[in-house]
């Protein structure tokens, strides 16, 4: 008898999703699906609003990475105005974006994933969360929380608040950085070094501990895509899009953001609200156009990082693969995330020491000059595109948002399938098996909306169905 196992909700991710695992008569995995079960509707209800409001509205897509939407939206606004923003404004935006990547990556690594890495995939679910981590190793947890706090504080200092700051606007930013606030950031920076070192220690221990998992957690060839700077350096704010295949061959080079539709197609499946973007030249069928974005992809597509310590870390990272191929294992998203935190800390330090950073000219003034605006940024989870079509008054007629998590959708489904095949045995289901499947999703740090689940509980719901829909067995925890 075939059966279906449902993991609903998937916990310790940002947003709402479930996983279904289909088993055959022998209890072996035949099919898996990662369903995103929430509907947001931003592309629809933004129609009729002014493009000036779009950064403020689209930032509400997410409470974790509002800054990414602010960047992409403000840049789409810059394109509509047809202006070059003041150089100080660009640097300030970059600092906020780096702050955002630090806080989001620290959240993913310490708050959401490290309980699995430190306590073990099969450990007691009620303890396997950030609160359990605080009880087990309060100093480690404190460093993780403080690292995230640093990123949040940078955003707060620049934008007035850490969540949904309405500071990034078409034409630049609303407020310059004062000398006092620049010095505050510099003072805070001096403390962060030991925190990131601790994160790397946790990661290296995890690599030792989970050697089996490393080989089974989303190890497959795929394309990788991300922005790179003019010299091929690691880039998060601007630049051009590069696509490489699993052999490291560049399929696309120098794709300007406004040309993204030439290379990205968007498919829809009836069982998920998340779209399935794919690399157009290779097509959607059989996952041929599957590509990955985010920290792992960015480190795979860039030529070098561009800061001293991150360059060295990237060099080490690339030793994972022989023959200079891209790192294809999803487990190394954690590794890539930490290297990016290191990079962002170094870049913030470099940029706040530039005297121009406290210049007060931070906003270019203009009105509607173009009827289409496309903005791009590298969100913590990957490349984010905002595309607005407006009328001559600046009222939105059409919106298309290509979200990073969506671009990883095909890869997340493949990862879930691979982990389920390796670990899920339908004849004797355990919570630990299913947690491994969930961890497969956590590695991508998907941002499905604006919320995380409450800690201290594991509201895991597993149901076994007969082919005619009868519930044969059910396991509910944490309720």
């Amino acid at each position, binding site marked *: 008898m075939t059966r279906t196992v449902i993991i609903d909700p998937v916990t310790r991710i940002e947003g709402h999703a479930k996983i279904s695992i289909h088993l055959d008569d022998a209890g072996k995995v035949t099919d898996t699906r990662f369903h995103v079960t929430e509907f947001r509707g931003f592309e629809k209800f933004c129609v*009729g609003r002014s493009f000036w409001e779009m950064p403020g509205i689209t930032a509400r897509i997410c409470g974790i990475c509002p800054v990414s939407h602010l960047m992409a939206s403000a840049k789409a606004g810059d394109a509509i105005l047809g202006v070059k923003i003041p150089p100080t404004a660009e640097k300030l935006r970059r600092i906020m974006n780096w702050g955002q990547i630090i806080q989001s990556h620290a959240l993913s690594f310490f708050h959401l994933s490290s309980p699995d890495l430190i306590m073990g995939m099969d450990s007691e679910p009620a303890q396997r969360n950030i609160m359990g981590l605080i009880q087990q190793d309060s100093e480690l947890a404190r460093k993780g929380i403080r690292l995230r706090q640093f990123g949040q504080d940078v955003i707060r200092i620049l934008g007035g608040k850490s969540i949904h700051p*309405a500071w990034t*606007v078409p034409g630049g930013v609303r407020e310059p950085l004062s000398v006092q606030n620049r010095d505050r950031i510099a003072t805070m920076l001096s403390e962060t070094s030991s925190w990131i070192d601790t994160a790397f220690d946790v990661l290296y221990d995890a690599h030792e501990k989970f050697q089996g998992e490393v080989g089974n957690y989303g190890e497959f060839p795929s394309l990788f895509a991300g922005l790179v700077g003019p010299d091929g350096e690691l880039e998060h704010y601007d630049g051009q899009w590069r696509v490489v295949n699993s052999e490291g061959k560049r399929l696309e080079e120098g794709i300007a953001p406004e040309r993204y539709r030439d290379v990205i197609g968007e498919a829809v499946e009836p069982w998920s609200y998340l779209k399935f973007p794919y690399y157009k030249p290779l097509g959607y069928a059989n996952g041929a156009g599957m590509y990955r974005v985010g920290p792992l992809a960015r480190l795979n597509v860039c030529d070098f990082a561009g800061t001293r310590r991150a360059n060295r870390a990237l060099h080490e990272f690339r030793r994972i693969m022989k023959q200079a191929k891209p790192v294809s294992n999803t487990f190394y998203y954690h590794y890539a995330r930490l290297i990016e935190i290191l990079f962002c800390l170094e870049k913030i330090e470099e940029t706040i020491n530039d005297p121009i950073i406290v210049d007060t000219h931070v906003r270019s003034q203009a*009105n509607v000059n173009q009827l289409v605006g496309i903005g791009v940024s590298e969100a913590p989870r990957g490349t984010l595109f905002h595309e607005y079509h407006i009328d001559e008054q600046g009222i939105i007629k059409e919106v298309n948002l290509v979200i990073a998590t969506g671009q990883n959708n095909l890869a997340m489904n493949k990862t879930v399938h691979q982990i389920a095949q390796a670990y899920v045995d339908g004849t004797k289901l355990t919570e630990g098996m299913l947690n491994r499947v969930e961890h497969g999703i956590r590695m991508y740090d998907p941002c499905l909306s604006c919320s995380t689940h409450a800690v201290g509980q594991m509201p895991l719901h597993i149901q076994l169905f007969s082919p005619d829909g009868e519930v044969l067995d059910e396991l509910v925890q944490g309720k």
Partner: protein
Amino acid sequence: MSVVTLTINDELVSAQAEQTLLEAIREQGIDLPTLCHMDGLSDKGGCRLCMVEMTNNNNRLVPACVTKVQEGQSIRTESDKLTNYRKMIIELLLSERNHICAVCVMNGHCELQNLAAHLGVNHVRYEYVVPDLPMDASHERFVQDHNRCILCMRCVRVCHEVEGAHNWDVMGRGVNSLVIADLNKPWGSSRSCTGCGKCVQVCPTGALSKKGSTVAEMVKHHDFLGWIMNGREKNIWEYR
């Protein structure tokens, strides 16, 4: 000028005979919520937030802004019933249009939002109407957003009474009423609008704003009105 004596919240007070109850109440330092009223403009008694109870007349409710003081009158400005009604008015206003404070240009500076907070309106008991209303960004300098309009008609009055252009009017009935420019033309094509911006400054919400304003960025200044009216009516040209 004759003087009358009346009772406000059990205190005997005197007021000038031509004064409204609202003026007399505020002279006593008593806070009374208003939205459609604005010093310098005629009153219309539209929002009903300034309702007070006439305790010498079966607690009858009257709008203070359009009721003249009378000898021997006794009124009460605060009661559970009044608070409840005021909250209901705010909730009805919030439910009629799309007041999305978090992404509004007036977030943090909006009179409707401030009053809602002041009166403790922490939820809306009525079903939201969620009308599909357009924005008009055809004007070179300003934007009109019907979604944020509460039909207080300050814009209509200031344009007619102070600027003298009478660009604005009201079309339709009840909750379907819309403030329109030049007999329902796009604002940018209105021939009567002088582009002075008085309507934008007196608007209590984000219904009228400066073009290019982003979330929470619009701050309005009302003091120009007192300056103009003092100059025009009293020949006092002192900006205070």
